[in-house]
């Protein structure tokens, strides 16, 4: 009967161990299970729905769990024209989301007001929320949304998992 040495190669577990940084591991888990908060406000929401349906299939990137409760969501997809009447409601929903949280401005209207240079439309949701990814298009194709989602995943990879993403919390603790 062979003796088991603590330094010997163990084929049973060697292939299952990965050495990495904590940040990288946390970000890897986060980026592959982004739960979107679908903030559908206009026609962009139709493309957002298409991105969630089987032909384009947003679940290939781990973001299929659309939650209609901000408290369970990670990324708010602002899809559509944000009117001034709606703007503070969007802000309020964003405020109810738990850290870490991200924002995708989907389409021309959410990014800049789009064609509505008007008294009634907020000229870009970035005036109220910190936007991570802007997606051009009027409306953008579902592929564009998926590309934006992948860009966001790449952005999440590079972020310090605690320091940056808990900025609001750390600030409130130190204050």
């Amino acid at each position, binding site marked *: 009967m062979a003796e088991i040495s603590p330094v010997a190669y163990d084929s049973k577990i060697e292939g299952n161990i990965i050495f990495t940084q904590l940040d990288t591991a946390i970000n890897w888990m986060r980026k592959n299970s982004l739960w979107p908060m679908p903030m559908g406000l206009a026609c962009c929401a139709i493309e957002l729905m298409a991105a969630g349906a089987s032909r384009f299939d947003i679940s290939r990137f781990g973001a299929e769990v659309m939650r209609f409760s901000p408290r369970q969501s990670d990324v708010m997809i602002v899809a559509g024209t944000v009117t*001034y*009447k709606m*703007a*503070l409601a969007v802000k309020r929903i964003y405020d109810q989301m738990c850290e870490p949280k991200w924002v995708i401005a989907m389409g021309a209207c959410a990014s800049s*007001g789009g064609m*509505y*240079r*008007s*008294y*009634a*439309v907020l*000229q870009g949701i970035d005036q109220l929320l910190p936007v991570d990814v802007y997606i051009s298009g009027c409306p953008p194709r579902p592929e564009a949304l998926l590309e934006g989602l992948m860009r966001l995943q790449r952005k999440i990879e590079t972020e310090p998992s605690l320091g940056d993403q808990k900025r609001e919390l750390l600030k409130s603790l130190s204050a």
Partner: protein
Amino acid sequence: MIIADAVASIESKFSVSKKIEFRGETTLVVNRAEIHEIVQYAKKELGFNYLVDLSSVDNFGEEPRFEIVYELYAFDSGLHLRLKISVSEDELEAPSVTDLFSTANWHEREVYDMMGIKFPGHPDLRRILMWDGYPFFPLRKDFPLAGKASDMPDVAFSAAAPLAGGPFVTLPSTATTKDREPRSRE
């Protein structure tokens, strides 16, 4: 019944200051104080049982400045009738017709929201598109397209939109597309 009979019937009972026939459409310009009675008469006696639309016009620079337009339709005879009243800036109100046509409820709210014309007798005259407390009437001609800044903390805010040299408008003409294309007319 034909439309001429209906017009003659209204003319015999109420004062009609102007009668316009254009491409088969009949427009009667009537007295603002009598509009409720005229709409009531048209509905009860002449069979105009459907208020298609109620809207307003801002003839900025003219006096009286505003017009309110009532589009009536009779389902049985298939007749259309358009009634217009003038509203001056000094007396920004017109009698409500919500007791005759429930559909006028939201139409009158929209006229109030966009033009600032009040409707005494309306059961619930609140703004319908903009929020309560918004200080302007944005469809008036002297309101800039870009909007104006306003702020109601915790309710809503608005700011002027960047127009980059605009608004770009086209002019009605028979000139070529190149000459008609939208330009800044400021």
